[in-house]
């Protein structure tokens, strides 16, 4: 094994890239769960976003339009979940699992003619001056724009939840929907909006895989990233900045194991590929999870 072949600067830089799709999906799910809804369909929404984004990007030649298409695709799929769980009061866990299966199937169908095509290039966005700083420059300031969009979204969600009136109402709805209703807030409306935001973010995360990381379309290409995103929300105790940490941790282990594989580590490839998932489970077990939103996963019906 040749550890010297691993370049630490590149390692950290690619960690940020590897973490971005999970971070995008997770920040959306965090908002959904803070509103009191448990949407287990993140995986399905991600892969639907991946194919929607890919189709739009290939046909228009613009990755930016691709990401917008991915967000819309994810949001539409999540709206299906929203209508079923919020208006028709179906069980959130079962509906979320069904949404994952549906999304996997739908994306495979939509992607039939797109296998083997390359996505239009999405150039890195070197921040002038800052990217020339040694070490820090390549790590932080030489990425594609979506890496920054992801970090910006985390910051925006944090500020929204902490400082805005709408964020306060959203937390109130997730904490105690009966009380929020009694005070005259529209529980269902707030939750539908949160669900659509979650869907759009998951779509962006999926499109990041098909347009930037791979960048190709293959069936089932999210490979469990949606589930990891769900786990990271719990790991983060429903707090945005800890979510960023969790995503980087997972991204870090992923990149490290790839580098170890390339360096010819004496551990079986299967074990190395397992590492990020094992690390996630281990962290979830060791960490004491914070307090979940009080009404998480409960259906709300204004009966009285």
């Amino acid at each position, binding site marked *: 094994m040749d550890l010297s072949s691993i370049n630490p600067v590149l390692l950290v830089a690619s960690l940020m890239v590897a973490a971005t799709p999970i971070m995008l999906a997770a920040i959306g799910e965090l908002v959904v769960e803070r509103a009191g809804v448990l949407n287990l369909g993140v995986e399905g929404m991600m892969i639907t976003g991946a194919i929607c984004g890919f189709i739009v990007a290939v046909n228009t030649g613009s990755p930016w339009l691709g990401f917008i298409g991915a967000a819309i695709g994810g949001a539409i799929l999540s709206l299906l979940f929203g209508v079923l769980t919020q208006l028709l009061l179906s069980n959130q866990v079962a509906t979320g699992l069904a949404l994952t299966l549906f999304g996997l199937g739908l994306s495979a169908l939509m992607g039939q003619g797109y296998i083997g095509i390359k996505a239009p290039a999405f150039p890195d966005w070197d921040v002038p001056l800052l990217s020339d700083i040694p070490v820090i420059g390549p790590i932080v300031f030489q990425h594609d724009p979506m890496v920054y969009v992801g970090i910006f979204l985390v910051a925006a969600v944090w500020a929204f939840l902490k400082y805005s009136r709408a964020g306060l109402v959203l937390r109130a709805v997730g904490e105690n929907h009966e009380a929020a209703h*009694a*005070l005259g807030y529209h529980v269902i409306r707030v939750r539908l909006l949160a669900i659509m935001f979650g869907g759009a973010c998951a779509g962006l995360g999926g499109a990041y895989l098909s347009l930037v990381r791979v960048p190709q379309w293959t069936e089932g290409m999210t490979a469990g990233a949606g589930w990891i995103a769900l786990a990271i929300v719990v790991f983060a105790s429903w707090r945005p900045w800890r979510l960023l940490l969790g995503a980087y941790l997972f991204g870090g282990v992923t990149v490290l194991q790839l580098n170890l594989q390339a360096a010819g580590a004496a551990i079986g490839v299967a074990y190395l590929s397992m590492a990020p998932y094992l690390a996630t489970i281990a962290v979830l077990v060791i960490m004491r999870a914070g307090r979940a939103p009080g009404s998480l996963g409960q259906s709300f019906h204004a009966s009285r």
Partner: protein
Amino acid sequence: MTDPLLRLTGLTKAYPGVIANKDVSFDIGRGEVHALLGENGAGKSTLVKTIYGLVKPDSGKMTLEGAPFQPAEPRAARAAGVAMVFQHFSLFDAMNVAENIALGMENPPAQSEIAARVLAVSDQYGLPLDPSRIVGELSAGERQRVEIIRCLLQDPKLLIMDEPTSVLTPQEVAILFETLRKLSAEGTAILYISHKLEEIRALCETATVLRLGEVVATCDPRATSARDMAELMVGSTLHVPEKAARDVGDVVLSLKNLSAKAPHRFGTSLRNISLDVRKGEVLGIGGVAGNGQDELVAALSGEMPTGADMLHYKGKAIGQMRPNERREIGLLAAPEERMGHAAAPDMSLTENAIMTATTRQRLTTRGFLHWAKARGFAEQVIKAFDVRTPGPQNAARSLSGGNLQKFVIGREIMQDPEVLVVNQPTWGVDASAAAAIRQALLDLASKGAAVICISQDLDELMEISDRFAALNEGRLSAPRPARGLTVDEIGLMLGGAHDMEVAHDSA
């Protein structure tokens, strides 16, 4: 100024199968403290929700200061000057006081300004409150203050209070009444809903009595006896539980330095509780919610195992026994929360009967259920305790709170316990059902069983207990004979100032 503040005319609201309000009309004047009385299901909640914009009436109208008033949602009601303090607090545990208050306001200012105004109002009305504290950590009295201050910050013309005192100590009630009188003197009208008739007599100027959705009487509570008001509510003569003279026998259950860690984060640890309970007595345990009541019941029922020697039943150490083993030997318990703890909401009454009665009623053989026998037992409970339900096949959820309470208490009593522990046996139950439950507990004691009744309703405890003790932060005061205890003495016991009594006596 001839218009009243709020005039209700012919309000009617029907739900499928039940008329909640039928042609309800009355006036509330400016600065008036108006009581709304009625049993459970008399339509009080529907009526106040109509005023607060949560329920739309089928017909009838309201005028506020002479102008038509039809709030489509609480926001509109708040904007018009109607504020409400809810029975089950509409608070958010994980948020701080200032955030909770901001949620109840239309156009809240910045957090720092809210904090300043909270401090100002809490000072003005003598309601101390720290705006940065997390609501989940506050006591019931403090939580209520949050609700009241939230209302006061909007300068309401009408303040609706739904059962505000059920969770307060007598001292806290006194503070609340001071605040309400001050508000009323400043011109704020108060619509006050309570089961506690003595409180209404002390506070209110007018009372409207609802029965089955209709206004049946209007009276001046200061000039009407509590008993008369109760009979107006019930519509028949009220049966007052009677204590039969009975002999107190040997000690059956003794607690020896019972200590236990709080089972969860918002729980209370039990500290060195020592107590002897004798056959044929009713021991009342008072205290404000959250001072260890749930934990004490859990320790006695076996849900929370303790050190083996901490509990002795007829001389045998039982601290480590499981609930069914305790049932087998005659120690039964009925917890406070009927929906989800004492009963499984979505299961039938028969199934719910099986849950605790299997052991003593022999409802199983080698793990197989005797359905017919179980059904028979459930029917017995329904009949003996006048549970209003079509039959034992109905889900527990379909019963009203009072009826389900009768069922879960009856289920334990019908198993002939030797010691019965009940927590809040008449919580949220109307006057006649409450009287029936208390009578059943007294009857059980006169048959020689020991009854431990934990309650926050001091009137109830004084009515049925032979001895009274108070729980405070997980400690139990020494029991004293209930007869002759004054409200002041009880208040001191509840406040945990056991030592102060000495000073008080000698002073």
